[in-house]
């Protein structure tokens, strides 16, 4: 009997010790939380939008390990290199499922999605999160905060910005007989308003007449819709949104001038009438081969893009033969313009780990990681302190092109802003192909805007 009691006691002691041990072990067990992110280039060099999040997760894990926390994060990020439209459609189809398993915690996309996503309740306002890490966010450029605001709240963390510019081939100007001094002076003339859009067309005409470029190879532009086209409305003195009411504006007079300018480029055989049918890759290939004089709607990121496969220009060649300036003013004495399209981080409403996701975004916004992205992909700094950060400050390209930012404006955060630029481009491409006159294209566009936006558009 005694031995039985002893045995029972022994068994109970063993069970107790094992329970305590397993409890202690359970306390030590590290839990891994997966944070999902959807990111996009679509240009290849912008892969740092994805890798910076991964790097940020690694840093976070180091900190968590150092303080003995029992959680770790695993970053599961995708990087889209196809089309913006494809990326946005796949995001939207997943978002509407409202299933946290299918939806990323972090979305890296254009700031124009703030309006639609916020209204659909897909993302969360970030003001309270930003307040927690004010030491990081206080030196972001103030202009960037304006473009992530919607209905008075901040919905995104700026990831990068850029400036949209006109590229020109210095070698073609040399072939035209321009001196190095005249070439170097051209951007300054644009900035002073001495060199206008009409002068640009004239320059293209001279290139063709001098047989420096082939017909229809003088001035090319992007073959797709985009915020770039707003620049021309601004250049002709128009506006696209009303700051007081937040409504979109259709400026008939300025838009007609833009359409007439496009027609002029085609009529003078400076631009192919089938410009909208030429693939991006063919455009970049033709440009980097030096067969085009002017690329009207470029962006600062092209600089890095052209250094990569399949274009493979060296930076030395770029400095030698390629120059840039903001979109020239339409009239003498006017101001040149540029539009920026900041990319932003969103935190989704369905994310089960919003705090961790935001922490990763905060770490990815560190000066060194963001500078790595800026220099590697031809984008610009988002924080003032980056300007003094040695790698950024020493980089001649970003240092110089940052100057264009003083002419920069942003697309409005209106839910229908993408509809605006999509349909505006339809009108531009229609005029360019000769399918419709500028007047009829304008009338048709105004009708579509009115029918789609109703009282959300001011036609003037």
């Amino acid at each position: 009997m005694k031995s039985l009691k002893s045995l029972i006691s022994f068994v109970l002691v063993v069970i107790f010790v094992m329970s305590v041990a397993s409890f202690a072990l359970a306390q030590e067990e590290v839990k891994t939380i997966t944070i999902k992110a959807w990111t996009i280039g679509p240009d290849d060099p912008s892969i740092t939008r994805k890798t910076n999040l991964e790097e940020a997760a690694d840093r976070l894990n180091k900190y968590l390990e150092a303080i003995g926390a029992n959680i770790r994060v695993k970053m599961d990020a995708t990087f889209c290199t196809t089309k913006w439209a494809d990326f946005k459609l796949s995001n939207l189809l997943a978002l509407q499922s409202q299933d946290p398993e299918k939806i990323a915690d972090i979305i890296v996309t254009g700031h124009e999605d703030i309006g639609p996503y916020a209204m659909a309740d897909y993302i969360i306002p970030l003001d309270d999160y930003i307040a927690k890490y004010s030491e990081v966010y206080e030196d972001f450029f103030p202009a960037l905060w304006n473009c992530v605001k919607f209905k008075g709240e901040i919905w995104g963390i700026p990831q990068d910005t850029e400036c949209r510019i006109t590229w020109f081939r210095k070698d073609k100007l040399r072939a035209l007989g321009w001196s190095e001094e005249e070439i170097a002076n051209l951007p300054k003339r644009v900035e002073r308003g001495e060199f206008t859009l009409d002068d640009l067309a004239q320059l293209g005409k001279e290139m063709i007449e001098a047989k420096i470029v082939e017909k229809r190879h003088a001035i090319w532009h992007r073959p797709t819709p985009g915020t770039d086209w707003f620049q021309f409305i601004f250049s002709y003195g128009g506006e696209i949104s009303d700051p007081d009411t937040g409504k979109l504006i259709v400026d008939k007079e300025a838009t007609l001038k833009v359409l007439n300018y496009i027609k002029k480029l085609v009529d003078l055989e400076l631009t192919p009438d089938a410009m909208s049918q030429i693939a991006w890759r063919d455009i970049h290939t033709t440009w980097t081969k030096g067969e085009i004089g002017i690329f009207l709607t470029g962006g600062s990121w092209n600089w890095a893009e052209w250094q990569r496969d399949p274009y493979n220009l060296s930076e030395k060649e770029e400095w030698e033969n390629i120059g840039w300036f903001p979109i020239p003013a339409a009239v003498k004495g006017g101001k040149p313009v540029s539009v920026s399209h900041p990319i932003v981080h969103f935190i989704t409403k369905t994310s089960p780990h919003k705090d961790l996701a935001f922490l990763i975004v905060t770490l990815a916004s560190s000066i060194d990681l963001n500078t790595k992205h800026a220099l590697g992909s031809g984008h610009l700094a988002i924080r003032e302190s980056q300007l003094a950060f040695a790698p950024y400050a020493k980089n001649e390209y970003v240092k110089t092109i940052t100057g264009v930012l003083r002419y920069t404006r942003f697309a409005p955060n209106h839910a229908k802003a993408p509809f605006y630029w999509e349909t505006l481009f339809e009108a531009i491409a229609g005029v360019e192909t000769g399918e419709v006159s500028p007047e009829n294209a304008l009338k048709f566009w105004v009708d579509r805007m009115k029918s789609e936006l109703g009282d959300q558009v001011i036609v003037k």
Partner: protein
Amino acid sequence: MGRGGYLKIFLFLLPAILFTAIFFITPAIMTTIMGFTNMDYRFQWNFVGLYNYFKMLIDPLVTKIILTTFVYTFGTLLIFNVTFGLILAILTTSIREKNGIFFRTIWLLPRFTPPVVYGVIWLWILSPMKEGLLNSFLGYDYMPWISNFPWQVIIITNGFIGASMGMVIFASAIKSISKDYLWAAKVDGASWLQEIGYIILPMIRWPVAFITAYQTLSLLTSYEYILLITEGGPYFKSTVWSLYSYKVAFSSYAGTYEFGYGAALATILVIVGIIFSIFCWRIFKFKEMVEEPKIEVI
């Protein structure tokens, strides 16, 4: 027939009924219901009655798109899917069997090719620049084929694929014609063209009627090659109804998705398809085709 007989028939048909109900009838009903909403990127079922149909009436693009759809559907059908398919079938069954199979296989290649690859190949062929295959072949420095000939481009690019189906069906129909008729015609001194006109064509009228009806419905709803090659341009010149419906619903950016209006446009296509099917059933007398033969040879 007893109850057991009907039950057997029902059980045999059940898989097909389920398949049709899940993949055809349910989406059509959902599309129709969605057409009465103003659903956008927020995916909310806000019912707005006939708003989308009134919107269609004042949509400035609709007239242009109806014309393009008509030209595309019947142009592709008459030139390629029926006529060219028939020519290919007759020619490839008039030569040695081995050679006929070889040529039919070649014509089937576009159908085996993934649509995106097929689209990219055509974009390279039709590139407006001198590097484009057609331009380099013809020695042109610049010719915007898609801008200048959008209707021809969508008819040809779709027709090259569409013709193969007609070719296969017609060829097998021709091969199933009893050789006795053709030998008898030859004995009577009929020429090759007379054989075609008096024997082959009358004897394959059912497959021709079927391909005409089937391909018309198929063309009415197909847009993938147009989307890949012309994207509906220039300035909606090659936008057909189904492509417009897709673009309105899915294309572009978040703020521009109009699922409600897109569904209403698609519903019109469903209605047109049903009306056309009934029309074909009567005109081509399909009932006769599916009737049990009056004489059965055992």
